[in-house]
């Protein structure tokens, strides 16, 4: 009783923006102050990218309860789209020669390039979303794997973007930006996009609209009988999920400056899977946490060389034995530390 009332009436201070914004500013300060070197920046960028990947895959695999194993494919679509846009607009491209826009404009337009990749990837998500109307479970899993193979194979056959030789030139865009202002642009945008993704997913999954996605996981029949257009919700889930994966791909491409299809094969997809389930299905904080832990582990264990890939899986298996529902289960940080709740709850409701 009181529970409900307080939720409706009492205004809480929402600490999320402060925490994330503050954290980002601190990182930026440390970077500019030279405390964080480029190596750590790179790791931070990969953490950011992995956060987007695992949080976005969680929409489908966690909240909606399907088993998509082709996230790498959508990342590929985003990576190639935004790379092509980037090269076309801001650098000397192999097709059009001169840049379409003055390279310095990249400072403002770079995010659009990344979002462009996301949009195309979102539409690529339809390739999986439409079969999901009729196909479910492991059959759908196969469709997602097939989609992954198809995207990789397609690019391998597209000579004009390099095929398996890969595609490069995106760094030039970054240099053009750095010429305008000496800032770590890739890091900044990675942080911005990963924070934004987490926010958007949080908003989506807390809205009644987004709850329609969760309703499919537990009981699709109930969802239909309550008037939820489950096909629409599947489209939304897949498009948002793959769109964000595309954004992650675009960032990835610009961090590396070089992409080739085999960076996005089924192994990439399995990494995304591991992060989602490590974090806990349907737990956004879990996805974020596991992306951080996983990326960090991969980096820290590097000196172990071959043994790294024995020890990390072993650790994950052990972890599953002790926490058979991932780091966070389907709870959020605020469920584990209820004292935090007032500071992170939505104000409306």
């Amino acid at each position, binding site marked *: 009783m009181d529970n409900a009332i307080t939720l409706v009436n009492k205004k809480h201070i929402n600490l999320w923006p402060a925490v994330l914004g503050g954290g980002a500013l601190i990182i930026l300060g440390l970077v500019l102050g030279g405390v964080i070197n480029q190596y750590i920046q790179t790791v931070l960028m990969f953490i950011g990218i992995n956060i987007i990947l695992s949080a976005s895959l969680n929409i489908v695999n966690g909240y909606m309860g399907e088993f998509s194993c082709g996230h790498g494919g959508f990342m590929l679509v985003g990576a190639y789209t935004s790379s092509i846009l980037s090269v076309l607009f801001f650098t000397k491209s192999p097709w059009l020669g001169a840049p379409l826009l003055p390279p310095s404009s990249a400072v403002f337009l770079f995010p659009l390039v990344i979002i462009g990749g996301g949009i195309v990837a979102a539409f690529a998500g339809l390739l999986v979303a439409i*079969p999901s109307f009729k*196909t479910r479970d*492991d*059959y759908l899993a196969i469709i997602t794997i*097939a989609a992954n193979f*198809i995207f990789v194979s397609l690019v391998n056959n597209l000579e004009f973007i390099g095929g398996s030789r890969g595609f490069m030139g995106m760094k030039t865009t970054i240099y053009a930006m750095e010429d305008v202002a000496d800032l770590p642009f890739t890091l900044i945008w990675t942080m911005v996009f990963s924070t934004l993704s987490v926010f958007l997913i949080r908003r989506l999954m807390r809205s009644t609209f987004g709850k329609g996605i969760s309703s499919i996981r537990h009981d699709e*029949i109930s969802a239909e009988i309550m008037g939820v257009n489950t096909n629409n919700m599947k489209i939304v889930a897949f498009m948002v999920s793959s769109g964000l994966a595309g954004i992650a791909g675009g960032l990835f491409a610009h961090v590396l400056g070089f992409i080739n299809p085999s960076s996005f094969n089924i192994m990439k997809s399995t990494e995304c899977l591991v992060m989602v389930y490590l974090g806990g299905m349907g737990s956004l904080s879990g996805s974020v946490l596991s992306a951080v832990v996983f990326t960090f582990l991969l980096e820290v264990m590097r000196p172990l060389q071959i043994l790294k890939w*024995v020890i990390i899986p*072993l650790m994950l298996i052990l972890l599953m*034995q002790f926490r058979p529902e991932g780091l966070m289960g389907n709870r959020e940080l605020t469920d584990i530390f209820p004292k935090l709740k007032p500071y992170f709850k939505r104000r409306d409701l």
Partner: protein
Amino acid sequence: MFSTLLQNLFNALQWGSFYSMIALGYCLVYGVLRLINFAHGDIFMMACYFAFFIASWFLGNLAGMPGPIIFGLTMILTMVATSGLGLFIERVAYRPLRKKGAHRLYVVITALMLGFILENGNLAVLGASSRRFPDMFGKIVFQFAGVSLTNYKIIVIVTAVLAFALLNLIVNSTKIGMAMRAVSYDKFAIPLMGIPLNRIITFTFILGSSLAAVAGILFGMSYPVLDPYMGMIIGWKAFIAAVVGGIGDIKGAFLGGFILGFIEIIVVAFFPSSYKDLIAFVILLVILSVKPTGFFGVAKSTKI
């Protein structure tokens, strides 16, 4: 032209046989536990290595024995070793999770991790050099009507069909097979029928692993370069084959393996080979769009 077609028919039969045998292994475990045993491809890889060591040992120490005897001994020992591995994995990784009632996808992820451990553990222990699988009883190439056939090819195809027939018999006509199917639907009620659940699962893993062992030996003989990652993609593809056939159904897995084998080979035969994956997977996508539960799969219809 005709001989090329015929040749490709045999190529497809051989390649499809491997997909089938591995897919059957997937299907068995899946059929019982609803567990996509992503480690299966790597169990298959380990079987190749077991067979490699066992056969090499026999060839070194029992020189002069007729090939078929060595082959038979290797087969038996490899099946034992691989079953041991399968059971070990089941015991230490899957069973505890099952007991705790973990979501099935966590078990799947555990399987994926186990695959990594097998691959890279092998690399760490045996080093980076690939191994050459020993020849147990001389390869013979038959030539007729412009078609080349090896005795290995024939053995592979025949074995795949026999393995399927045997499994089909076990799963569909024996009580233990019935129990296996029942477990897949409802583990809860199995003990209520007086049936020891763990024994059924153990049996399933033995069967699945033995099948991987058979496939492993034949694969080693047919494609004799062994490396730790050899099981990965063929494993994934065999899983795909199992699903296209209708996962959980023995007939489906068997057929699915051949379908995938045929699709891949036909695509390469008639299109530029670089489009292999592209076209093959588009075809699979279309198949699954038309038959959303594969060829033999029955959707677990939820009673409303």
